């Protein structure tokens, strides 16, 4: 009955309709601002740092040095075995107890980078392992060192293999940045919460936030598509 009432209210009462449209319009700007100031930079910076961490972790896992393997395993195990939100809370609300206070944005970057690093390291490890041994050997046979063969021969090919799964990670990351609202980063979703707290239009504002995330993710999917096409140019069709 209540639902019916609300719906009929929207569609039968032109004034209510206008009010909603106007709220949606005026809240759009702060939300986009939140996205441009925090959501997008947080996603991009974190993804780059996370990827670097992931490559290093994957190489540590694949190295023959025991202690590096163990460090990498423990790191991946802890990050994958604990909730992201708990990790963010430990960094932002927990570390001050040790006298370490980090601002919200930096806390979010640290938390999300550690997270991406752990998840993506498994993707990269699998991608490196998928490159045939003959590629390493061909590199060695023309005099390359391990590092040269890795950088010039194996990683470029592993990159191609890992684009689809890494795109998943990237899109998840973009959406997960909404958790940063809980450690006071005024990103897209936090803006939506703040506005809704004032005017009680929760449904409208959260739907609007959802739509913005969806648009951003759709753009990312397009970029993924063209990136795959570019990286596939040397593969038989």
């Amino acid at each position, binding site marked *: 009955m209540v639902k019916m009432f609300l719906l009929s209210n929207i569609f039968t009462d032109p004034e209510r309709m206008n009010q909603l449209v106007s709220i949606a319009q005026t809240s759009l700007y702060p939300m986009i601002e939140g996205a441009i100031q925090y959501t997008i930079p947080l996603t991009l910076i974190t993804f780059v740092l996370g990827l670097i961490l992931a490559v290093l972790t994957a190489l540590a896992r694949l190295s023959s040095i025991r202690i590096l393997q163990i460090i990498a395993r423990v790191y991946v195990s802890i990050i994958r075995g604990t909730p992201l939100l708990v990790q963010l809370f430990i960094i932002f609300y927990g570390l001050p107890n040790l006298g370490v206070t980090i601002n919200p944005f930096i806390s979010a970057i640290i938390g999300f980078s550690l997270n991406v690093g752990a998840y993506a390291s498994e993707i990269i490890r699998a991608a490196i392992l998928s490159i045939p041994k003959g590629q390493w050997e*061909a590199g060695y*046979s*023309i005099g390359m060192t391990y590092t*040269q063969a890795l950088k*010039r*021969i194996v990683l470029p090919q592993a990159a*191609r293999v890992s684009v689809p799964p890494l795109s998943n990670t990237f899109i998840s990351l973009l959406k997960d940045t909404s958790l940063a609202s809980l450690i006071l980063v005024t990103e897209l979703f936090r803006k939506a919460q703040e506005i809704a707290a004032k005017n009680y239009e929760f449904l409208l504002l959260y739907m609007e936030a959802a739509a913005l995330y969806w648009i951003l993710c759709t753009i990312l999917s397009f970029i993924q598509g063209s990136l795959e096409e570019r990286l596939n*140019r*040397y*593969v038989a069709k």
Partner: protein
Amino acid sequence: MINIKNLHKSFGDLEVLKGIDLEVEQGKVIVLIGPSGSGKTTFLRCLNLLEVPTDGTIEIDETVMDFKKPVRKNSITSFRSLTGMVFQSYNLFPHKTALENVMEGPIIVKNIAKHQAKETAAALLTKVGLGEKIDFYPFQLSGGQQQRVGIARALAMEPKVMLFDEPTSALDPELVGDVLQVMKDLAKDEGMTMIVVTHEMRFAREVADEVIFMDEGKIMERGTPEQIFTNPKEARTRKFLNMIQ
């Protein structure tokens, strides 16, 4: 040129090479034959140190490696530069064009200027009959063409010895000829020292200075192609030759 003494290689408990002794003079072409599992590929890979032997010594061009002692990584890399390797499955870099495949070693390993490496690479590709294909990616080339890029890639590093690991056995029959021709030219015109694992008996007859029959990790018999193919001494050599001919 090459002097191999008492070469052993084991994988765990499995001894694959059981003491190989071999001397090869400069400019000679040696063809290795033998049943699968006889250790010939492992032997070739030991010369390039893709497999590190467990015992014995290898001397190439006056550089000696003694495998009684543990070998250092950088000595492996420098010793490896004496030999060029051609693989059965080509192992071209799929993300690089034919030209880039050949340029890669000179630029990255030898630090040669890009334009110069490019010139040399193009010349080498022309020599192996691929002057028209330098900008093609491996997937756009036939197996025979890919293998010739593989040969050019190895030659670009100016090795003293070329090692061929069954270079034609992954090829369709009609593509074998071009690859063998390149190898013949390399032997005859350039006087390249070559060790070739192959089942191409005609190639062995025409080009080899010496044919070596390996079985069970040892050299069973060696001689000129004429001796081995028409008058083998060992029963096992005869049996093997009967099976493949």
